[in-house]
């Protein structure tokens, strides 16, 4: 009898934290875990599914492979980055069920926070910061680091973006945006090790038409939108899905408008549950700078309705309906006097002396 030739299975079975799922060959462990969802999905600070070649760097997504595959069930000796490791048929992965993983992730969070100020109260990314979430879920209550932290002056890199290197965790996502989405790349990473920094090529400005997407991929508050910076806190604004007929062929024209009353404070891409830009028809929904920075009137857009926000998110907290601006009662409670500014927290920070 002729030997039966076994065709490779159409789908690979992988078990992550005791939950088994079938995924297409070529799927990474991280994406398989995302298909299961919840805590089974490892946190990711540098991987971004819409940016080719991203991932592998931050090491927050390390997992334990307890069995390599059905064919070779040996465990892998080291923890592996789930964002860059492909699933094999019969693989057994431990994420939060592995003490080694929790321990390593603890370490990674500590390392990431070594040179990242915890100035969430004044950081523009507060409420949308993945490092903040990671700190809550995997961090320690205190720090063991007692040395001076690295600080940088803020830098304007072009008309729309401000870079505050002090907060950068060198995830490389913005450099992939620069490579893959924009023309005339002028920014990248200079220097090495913990001296490494994001910067532009000697006093160049970033002014290409898709640069704003760098702000959206930055997981922390290192790259901020100069048209929105400190104008509001995200949880005071109300996100609304809207679209417009954009004539830039690369722009999907679908965005989230962040409103306070009728004022559009900020325009961003739409994000999925992993904090990544949402895909439409399989294509990532990047938006152009015109939509993001110049279309700040509701009349510029066709409003679709409120953005669905996870109710656990801080953004869901200050959700006020009807678009009515709350009454300013400061003068009333102060007997008619205008409030006096004692300290501008935006310019003074103990944690981070250079602001």
């Amino acid at each position, binding site marked *: 009898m002729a030997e039966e030739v076994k065709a490779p299975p159409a789908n690979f079975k992988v078990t992550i934290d005791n939950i088994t799922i079938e995924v297409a060959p070529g799927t990474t462990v991280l994406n398989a875990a995302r298909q299961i969802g919840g805590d089974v999905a490892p946190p990711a600070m540098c991987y971004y599914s819409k940016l080719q070649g991203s*991932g592998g760097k931050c090491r927050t997504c390390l997992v334990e492979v307890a069995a390599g595959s059905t064919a070779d069930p040996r465990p892998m000796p080291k923890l592996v980055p789930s964002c860059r490791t492909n699933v094999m048929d019969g693989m057994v992965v431990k994420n939060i069920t592995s003490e080694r993983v929790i321990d390593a992730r603890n*370490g*990674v969070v500590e390392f990431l926070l070594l040179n990242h100020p915890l100035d969430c109260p004044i950081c523009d990314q507060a409420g949308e910061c993945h490092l903040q979430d990671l700190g809550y879920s995997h961090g320690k209550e205190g720090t063991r680091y007692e040395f001076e932290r690295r600080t940088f002056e803020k830098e304007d890199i072009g008309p729309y973006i401000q870079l505050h290197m002090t907060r950068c965790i060198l995830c490389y996502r913005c450099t992939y945006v620069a490579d893959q989405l924009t023309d005339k790349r002028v920014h990248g990473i200079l220097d*090495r*090790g913990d001296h490494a920094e994001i910067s532009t090529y000697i006093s160049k400005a970033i002014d290409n038409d898709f640069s704003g997407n760098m702000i959206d991929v930055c997981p922390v508050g290192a790259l901020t939108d100069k048209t929105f910076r400190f104008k509001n806190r995200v949880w005071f604004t109300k996100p609304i899905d809207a679209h417009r007929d954009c004539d830039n062929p690369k722009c999907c024209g679908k965005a989230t408008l962040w409103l306070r009353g009728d004022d559009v404070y900020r325009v961003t891409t739409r994000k999925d549950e992993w904090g990544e830009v949402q895909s439409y028809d399989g294509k990532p929904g990047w938006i152009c700078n015109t939509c993001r920075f110049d279309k700040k009137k509701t009349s510029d857009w066709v409003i679709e309705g409120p953005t669905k926000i996870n109710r656990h998110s801080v953004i869901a907290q200050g959700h006020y309906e009807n678009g009515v601006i709350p009454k300013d009662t400061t003068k009333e409670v102060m007997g008619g006097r205008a409030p006096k500014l004692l300290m501008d927290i935006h310019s003074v920070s103990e944690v981070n002396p250079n602001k």
Partner: protein
Amino acid sequence: MGRKLLLDKANVPGIRSFEVYRREGGYRSVEKALKMSEADIVEEVKKSGLRGRGGAGFPTGMKWSFIAKPEGVPRHLVVNADESEPGTFKDRYLMEFIPHILIEGMIVSSFALGSNVSYIYIRGEYAWIVDILEEAIAEAKQHGFLGNNILGSGFNCEIYVQRGAGAYICGEETALIESLEGKRGNPRIKPPFPAVKGVWERPTVVNNVETIAAVVPIINEGGEEYAKIGVGKSTGTKLISACGNINKPGIYEIDMTISVEEFIYSDEYCGGIPNGKKLKACIPGGSSVPILPANLLLTTAKGEKRMMNYESLADGGFATGTMMGSGGFIVMDEDQCIVRHTLSLARFYHHESCGQCSPCREGTGWMEKILKKIEYGKGEIKDIDLLWDIQRKIEGNTICPLGDAAAWPVAAAIRHFRDEFEWHVLNPEESQKRNYGLAHYADPIHVPSAV
């Protein structure tokens, strides 16, 4: 006296020139290899048991057999002459004094691997060696050993020398490939491995200078003959660059059957320790391999004599053993301060981390700062435990082995010399008065202001 295969002609006057080298029997291996099949050469290298001399000791023949051979896609051989591991300086000697042995080995290896364009990636600081290599390449070409249709065999091969800008990380094979392509020297995430996608996304083999030079005697004498030299899986000869507190620092070619004790004390090799001082410790394989205290260096935990070969040096794992590494043998006498030496290494790895992955980028700097604190008499006992915990969280969790290379020296120093760290912490004033002998720095160390 052990056999010499690489340095046997090192003292022949004018051996650097093609003429003398050829007269002394050079380039015979090329003549022989071009008449063999590619597969037969790989087979000879497999039989020889040659292990990579760049540090990891991976069997060379096996590495060569992994190279992918997709139809119509060129392949490349890249020689790693970055030699940046502190304590390691053997490749430099080989290239400076007998450049043709490398070129000869490269022609044979290129033929075996099907590489028509091969590269030598050399550290920028070896500027004068670049000229020597380029001259040797030009001579070889002039005599028909390089270029088109080598010795009428139909095989074409060019060798290019590419300088690095002087970064340790560019010795790591994937960072080397990135740098060779003109990019920032960041290690790549594997897979894909260079054997499948290396330089210009083409199948590539990266080998150390000494490894490729060793191919010459292997082809000349046959793999089996080569394997008879040495012991166990440590076949052939190994170049050791010896330095530190020894009477005769230098490059030695050993056949891996001698003991560590003999290597340090015999007149044929290091010639003992100056001024009758006692041996305190040794890093036998380049700065990244674990340091061993004298007792564990000379005898294994089982009480056997420790030998100068891969297996014996690694005996006992990291608890009581170390590694052959790249053969950078650093000897320390009783006056040496382990804390200060460990700081010196930590400083190096911090400076050289590429910064891609968080544990290495942040952890190496943190370790250096804590070591500085202890070294400057401001340490606390908890700092020693903290150091231990930090190295533990770096090791194994990074993209490339530089993270491990930074963690191991700290781990081994604490494992074997914890009492010395504690002495520093408990006797801050006395520790400041010590004379540190060997350790000196190009620039002053600033104690962080927070300390």
